[in-house]
């Protein structure tokens, strides 16, 4: 078993490295890539355009060949460091430009902050740049400017977000550490005192509740419809599971959202005050209130709809699968022997049949974890639930590569781990399985 686990873990590491290289390589094939919007902006002169493109290219490290960039990403320094003059200049320019268009006072304030504090930073960084000998050698430039070589993702430096929350370390976004400004909504998210605000925790809560509730519902359904095969209830439950498997998550989510979130509130406000309604989005009622993040009542109200939506297809799938494996087990000789011994129905079904029918189920549940993570992207997007799904959705939509890569790596890791867990769990519940 130990040898097997070591071999599987090594395979897992290989898969992760390959996945990351694959994704990194593919991302770099994108025309324009992260500088797509820089390329599309109107410029007065060609020189100005070239300068902007050149600046963005350096800022994102696109002037290096892909292997170097991948290795940088794996273990080297970050082009969006605050010692990088080009990065500082770019942030400043972007702030000046955005200042003319924005009306939101909060955003204006943070832009004003950049505009007033950056010029001296840029000046000193440029002074440092002037002393560097080779301006076009990316690696020596980094050390010359004093940009820390504190490692890439291998050493836990997952880079900083490019677009979703510019300049914020990716891990801070994922773990909900530190204050940052959400670029898509312009909302300044305060420094949290609650660890439960982290998107990772939010998604884990959503996923584990979903698994728990799916199990609690699917198991009785599966056992019941197997024991009462071909009864009216069995037909009804089978039909239900077909419905559940075929229901598109996003449609079901939208219907629930409109019915329980909006229509019920309308009716509630129109006088049916006994009618409860559910919040339509978010993790808590008020994002800026840190106290609400630890208020279990509020959290649960916000979790009900996402959990139901995320659980529907797993309830349907698992109950159907358990029904099939129960039927198979119930036909076997040892179950007939148990009946013949005169054991109680409860004992035969739960102790003799169910225990063996659960063996293949274990694998199914472990393998469902990455599927749930995918489902969470859709569910969180509909209910605007601040988890990894929303974060990933924003990262993909805004070409935020570091964030995107990090979440892809985390979800690949999830797949690898759940595959290994499935194998181990299988060996534990089924003593006939021996790995070598």
């Amino acid at each position, binding site marked *: 078993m130990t040898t097997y686990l070591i071999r599987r873990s090594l395979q897992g590491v290989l898969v992760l490295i390959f996945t990351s290289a694959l994704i990194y390589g593919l991302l770099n094939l994108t025309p324009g890539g992260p500088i797509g919007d820089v390329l599309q902006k109107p410029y007065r002169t060609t020189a100005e355009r070239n300068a902007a493109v050149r600046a963005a290219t350096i800022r994102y490290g696109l002037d290096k060949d892909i292997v170097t960039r991948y290795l940088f990403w794996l273990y080297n320094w970050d082009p969006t460091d605050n010692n990088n003059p080009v990065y500082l200049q770019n942030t400043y320019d972007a702030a000046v430009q955005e200042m003319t268009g924005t009306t939101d006072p909060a955003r204006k304030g943070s832009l004003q902050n950049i505009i007033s504090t950056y010029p001296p930073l840029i000046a000193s960084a440029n002074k440092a740049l002037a002393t560097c000998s080779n301006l076009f050698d990316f690696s020596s430039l980094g050390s010359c400017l004093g940009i820390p070589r504190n490692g890439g993702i291998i050493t836990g430096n997952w880079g900083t977000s490019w677009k979703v929350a510019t300049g914020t370390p990716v891990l801070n976004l994922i773990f909900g550490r530190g204050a940052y400004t959400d670029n898509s909504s312009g909302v300044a998210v305060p420094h949290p005192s609650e660890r439960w605000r982290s998107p990772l925790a939010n998604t884990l809560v959503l996923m584990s509740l979903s698994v728990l509730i799916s199990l609690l519902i699917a198991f009785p359904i599966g056992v019941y419809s197997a024991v009462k095969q071909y009864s009216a209830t069995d037909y009804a439950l089978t039909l239900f599971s077909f419905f559940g498997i075929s229901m598109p998550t996003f449609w079901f989510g*939208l219907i629930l959202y409109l019915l329980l979130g909006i229509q019920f509130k309308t009716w509630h406000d129109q006088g049916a005050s006994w009618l409860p309604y559910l919040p339509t989005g978010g993790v808590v009622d008020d994002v800026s209130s840190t106290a609400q993040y630890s208020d279990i009542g509020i959290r649960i109200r916000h979790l009900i709809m996402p959990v139901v939506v995320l659980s529907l297809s797993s309830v349907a799938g698992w109950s159907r699968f358990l029904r099939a494996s129960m039927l198979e087990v119930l036909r076997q000789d040892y179950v007939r022997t148990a009946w013949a011994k005169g054991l109680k129905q409860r004992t035969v079904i739960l102790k003799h049949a169910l225990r063996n029918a659960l063996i293949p189920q274990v694998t199914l549940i472990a393998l469902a974890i990455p599927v749930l*993570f995918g489902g969470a992207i859709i569910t969180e997007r509909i209910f605007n639930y601040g988890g990894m799904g929303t974060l990933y959705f924003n990262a993909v939509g805004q070409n935020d590569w570091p964030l995107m890569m990090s979440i892809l790596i985390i979800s690949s890791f999830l797949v690898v781990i759940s595959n290994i867990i499935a194998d181990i769990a299988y060996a534990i519940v089924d003593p006939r399985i021996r790995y070598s």
Partner: protein
Amino acid sequence: MAVATTLDREQIASAKEESQRSVIWRRFRKHKLAVVGLGIIGTLTLLSLTAQLWTPYDPTVPGFNSGVQAFANPGYSNPSNGDIYIMGTDNIGRDVLSRLAYGGQISLSVGLLCTLLVAIIGTIVGAISGFFGGFVDTVLMRIVDLVLSLPFLPMLLALSIVLGPGYWTIVIILTAFGWPGTSRLVRGSVLSLRNLDFVEATRALGASNTRIITRHLLPNSLAPIIVDATLNVGGFIVAESSVSFLGFGISEPASSWGNILAGLEDVARQAPLQLIWPGLLIFLTVLSINFIGDALRDALDPRLKL
């Protein structure tokens, strides 16, 4: 008397001559829901294919725009020119009925095309892997393992951005993620068949590897391939519409059931009932396909006596 004997002979003859196809069809028909599903799929396919002939408006042009609000509820009649929108219009004033019909062409064809490609690639890889075994098998199955251990939906979104959202991007990506499942299935089936006596006999008669695979192994593993392919159609339709719904799939102005729903979501608060149509079409299609797949599984299983 003469009449009776003739009848008997005919009956015997017809019973003997019942082809495999009609046996399957007879068994399939026992699943009433699957037959209904077949009807639904047939109707939807026909309506989508003929969309150019019967849809009232251009699906890409905002025909209705009153200026104040761009969308219209079902049954809206434009007072200025009398245009009637049976299913209303979407967030920017395009006829929902026409968009659904054209969207059906894309959603259904993505499902069918991906299934076809996946079945072809999966069968070829699976057959080669299962039949030849050894090094070829190891390499191919490691690739399969690798693809299966990529996170599906996150990768789908990332790849869609990388390759540029569009019809062929979706087809290529879904195929790339779909074939490993089928090839595993085919490999398993070929592995269980290749050491049977009849294969040995064929080889003794001098049949080539290609002939053994194409004439003997694959026809015998056709049943699971067909069932798998049927269920794949539904899976691909849901996958395409999910990606399009999230905004990374079929991009505007072309319509797919997923991106129509995304467009209608913008006006969900004002016209909530509009949301029913695209989702219902996806749901009905996938439900029908799942019923058909289930019925096919029973109909094609020789061990099952129906």
